[in-house]
């Protein structure tokens, strides 16, 4: 067998390969209105970069690998990525020629690439994962001779690369549109939304045809196997066997990737049995396999999620055919969502601190809070860390100093509006308007709650002072309704005006965009939510689409004030501290939305709710949502969605920190 790298032409005698080529370019033509042709068909493509000994691992065994050549080519100013396995060279006889051609990546234009994640572990091989705009990803490409940085540097010379705010190892490709623009344009043109099932339209009737084509196409788009996971097959389809085969292959690849990046999952402890199941499960094959496992291992019925009517399905008319939940969330969360522990107490918290008060392992602390919350008396000490007001590596003394400095700073800020005389106020409309609004709203915030109840309540006045001071601290954002809902529990917990102010400031660094005048922070999140539902419950997504509900305005209140009006006060605080850990994701709140929607999906679809009815229904869920099982569902959904879920959420979506700085100063240093 030849050890040479085979060029594309050399593969033309391979029947499978030729078929996949043909189908592949046919479907690409379909997606792109024939504007583009693959550079491989014309030899005028300019070779930009070539790297030998780049391999993928189709199985979990490091010894089984397919080596090949990674290339960057450029044609008509479009950069293309391709990876062609060496002809005949596989490390193991079990890997067939078919496998080899299956994984071939043929000239993917960077316009279809969303991001590149690099892994450069100190031990082991470097690799990159290329994620497409559709949310799907190619298997990891291992650089056996190193050179990931060089590769990224070359890419950067030809396309715009920006480092993700969430993960320093993720580089976003051509991400110069603001999230708002992307949101708006996508919302207005729902048909242009990239679909979880890859680049193929997933609407009803023609799906079999599409699947057939997709399967053949899978040779150069390995990742499109994912779509099979998300769709329930009704009839036997010969292409299905192949797709499941591929699915398994792909999941083994991801398993290998996971096992070689031990840092990803090795930190879980104390949940042994569940972890074992977790690790034995291929990430990307969740839909069918998972429900089987759930059935096998958990015969007990899921505990009651519902403590009231809104979730009950009894009224559903029998003649309405509700599509099955592709993820069967109630089973899913039994397997993937871990049970909660009791809230963290002082003794436990102290164990996270070194002798000078530094949090030694902030991730372990966040994990602990994620899985059980914090005892109320301890909240005032831990919330400032979670919110980002205290640095985890600060000492007791440094925090003491910070508090005193910040208290003076707060006093100065407060003095700014306190020194406005009645005469000055007369000529200061903006100030009067804001003050009027805040005055009106603080007396309408949680007044039924003990801490704020009664006439002349001092805490209400403190809330007013903090909000007014904040509107001077951040004059551009000012005051908007909903802010008092956030401040109220913070003040209740911190019981200190200056400390509450700075915690609120830290929270608004992330959630301020919720209150932008143009509502772009809200629209971005609602858009991300629609993408997640599309990924995690395609039938429900299609239902919303058909019923003109894709704007997700019915989730507006959930997101604006992070479920503050949906749970009782104590439960809200529990949920918030879980969300603020950013443990699995900065956007767990969106998965919480998906979790609740999935629990109601059969009622929503069964009763054929229109926008108005749905909005009213969602509003009336308030007070009837069980927190613990919802968080558990959300965790399960978040883990299952994995990178596809993360890729559904545009960079900079609140509560991620704003991208602006990164956009202004794009990575001059670190890529190279």
């Amino acid at each position, binding site marked *: 067998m030849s050890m040479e790298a085979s060029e594309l032409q050399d593969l033309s005698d391979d029947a499978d390969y030729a078929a996949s080529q043909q189908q592949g370019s046919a479907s690409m033509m379909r997606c792109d209105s024939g504007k583009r042709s693959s550079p491989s068909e014309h030899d005028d493509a300019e070779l930009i970069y070539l790297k030998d000994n780049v391999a993928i691992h189709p199985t979990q065994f490091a010894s089984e690998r397919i080596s090949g050549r990674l290339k960057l080519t450029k044609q008509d100013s479009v950069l293309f990525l391709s990876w062609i396995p060496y002809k005949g060279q596989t490390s193991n006889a079990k890997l067939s020629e078919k496998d080899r051609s299956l994984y071939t990546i043929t000239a993917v234009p960077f316009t279809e690439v969303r991001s590149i994640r690099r892994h450069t572990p100190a031990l082991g091989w470097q690799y990159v994962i290329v994620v497409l705009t559709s949310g799907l990803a190619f298997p990891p490409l291992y650089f056996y001779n190193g050179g990931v940085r060089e590769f990224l540097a070359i890419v950067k010379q030809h396309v715009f690369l920006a480092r993700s705010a969430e993960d320093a190892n993720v580089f976003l490709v051509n991400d110069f549109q603001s999230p708002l623009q992307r949101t708006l344009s996508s919302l207005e043109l729902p048909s242009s939304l990239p679909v979880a099932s890859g680049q193929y339209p997933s609407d009803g009737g023609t799906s079999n045809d599409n699947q057939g084509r997709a399967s053949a196409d899978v040779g150069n788009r390995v990742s499109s196997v994912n779509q099979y996971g998300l769709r329930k097959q009704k009839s036997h389809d010969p292409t299905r066997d192949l797709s499941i085969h591929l699915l398994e292959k792909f999941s083994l690849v991801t398993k290998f990737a996971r096992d070689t990046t031990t840092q990803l999952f090795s930190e879980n402890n104390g949940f042994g049995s569940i972890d074992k199941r977790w690790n034995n499960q291929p990430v990307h094959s969740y839909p069918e396999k998972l429900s089987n496992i759930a059935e096998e291992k958990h015969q007990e019925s899921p505990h009651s999620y519902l403590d009231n*009517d809104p979730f009950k399905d009894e*009224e559903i008319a029998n003649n309405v055919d509700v599509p099955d939940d592709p993820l069967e969330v109630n089973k899913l969360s039994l397997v993937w969502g871990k049970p909660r522990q009791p809230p963290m107490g002082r003794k436990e918290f102290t164990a996270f601190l070194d002798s000078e008060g530094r949090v030694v392992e902030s991730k372990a602390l966040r994990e602990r809070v994620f899985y059980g919350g914090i005892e109320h008396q301890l909240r005032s000490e831990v919330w400032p860390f979670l919110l980002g007001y205290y640095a985890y590596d600060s000492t007791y003394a440094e925090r003491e100093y910070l508090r005193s400095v910040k208290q003076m700073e707060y006093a100065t800020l407060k003095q700014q509006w306190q020194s406005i005389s009645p005469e000055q106020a007369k000529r200061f409309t903006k100030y009067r308007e804001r003050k009027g*609004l805040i005055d*009106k*709203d603080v*007396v*309408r*915030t*949680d*007044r*039924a709650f003990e801490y704020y109840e009664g006439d002349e309540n001092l805490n209400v006045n403190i809330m007013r002072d903090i909000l007014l001071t904040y509107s001077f601290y951040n004059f551009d954002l000012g005051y*908007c*309704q*909903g802010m*008092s*809902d956030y401040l109220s529990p913070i003040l209740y917990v911190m019981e200190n005006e200056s400390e509450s102010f700075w915690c609120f400031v830290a929270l608004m660094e992330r959630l301020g965009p919720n*209150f*932008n*005048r*143009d*509502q772009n922070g*809200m629209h971005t999140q609602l858009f991300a939510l629609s993408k997640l539902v599309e990924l995690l419950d395609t039938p429900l997504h299609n239902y919303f689409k058909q019923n003109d509900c894709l*704007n997700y*305005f019915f989730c*507006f*209140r959930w997101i*604006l*004030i992070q479920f503050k*009006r949906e749970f009782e006060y104590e439960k809200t605080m529990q949920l918030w501290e879980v969300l603020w850990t950013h443990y699995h994701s900065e956007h767990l709140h969106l998965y919480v939305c998906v979790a609740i929607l999935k629990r109601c999906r059969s009622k929503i679809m069964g*009763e054929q709710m229109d*926008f*108005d*009815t749905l*909005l*009213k*229904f969602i*509003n*009336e869920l308030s007070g009837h949502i069980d927190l613990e099982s919802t968080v558990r569902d959300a965790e399960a959904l978040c883990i299952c969605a994995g990178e596809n879920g993360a890729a559904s959420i545009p960079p900079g979506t609140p509560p991620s920190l704003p991208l602006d700085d990164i956009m202004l100063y794009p990575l001059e240093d670190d890529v190279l």
Partner: protein
Amino acid sequence: MSYAYLFKYIIIGDTGVGKSCLLLQFTDKRFQPVHDLTIGVEFGARMITIDNKPIKLQIWDTAGQESFRSITRSYYRGAAGALLVYDITRRETFNHLASWLEDARQHANANMTIMLIGNKCDLAHRRAVSTEEGEQFAKEHGLIFMEASAKTAQNVEEAFIKTAATIYKKIQDGVFDVSNESYGIKVGYGGIPGPSGGRDGSTSQGGGCCG
């Protein structure tokens, strides 16, 4: 609970003019000065009788702050009636009426009945907008007008019912095709004469609603 018709109402106007209090006074017959500010939208419902016909009002109480306008606009769809509220003690809430009206005209159906309400008329000593100004504005823009007080309940009942009566009359006059729900009217039980006839099933949404 059966009804002959269901009308969708929407309450709009600046923040703090008393929209939620008007709703509560109408649905629960009580005044609650201490209540949480409205985020997004809240719902209320009540049965009334017009021309011996039971009519259910489903009322959408919206958030008033300017920033939420883009969301509020999506609530107009399919509203049969709107209560446009200002506060007679705060001039600026009257000055903003034109922009609210513009929103309503743009996003609601053209036959929506609009009632202008000058609220807080119990605070006459702090009045900043005269009754005549309110009347004048209503006349210019083809609105029904009333001053009311959510606190004393003065004219609250009347405002909601008069709006419903106007809608009902439009139905009788054939202005609406009641089988088209985009007008914010659903036909329920109760033997309605007319082209669409009675239709059932519309009461399935938990009947009493929030009220």
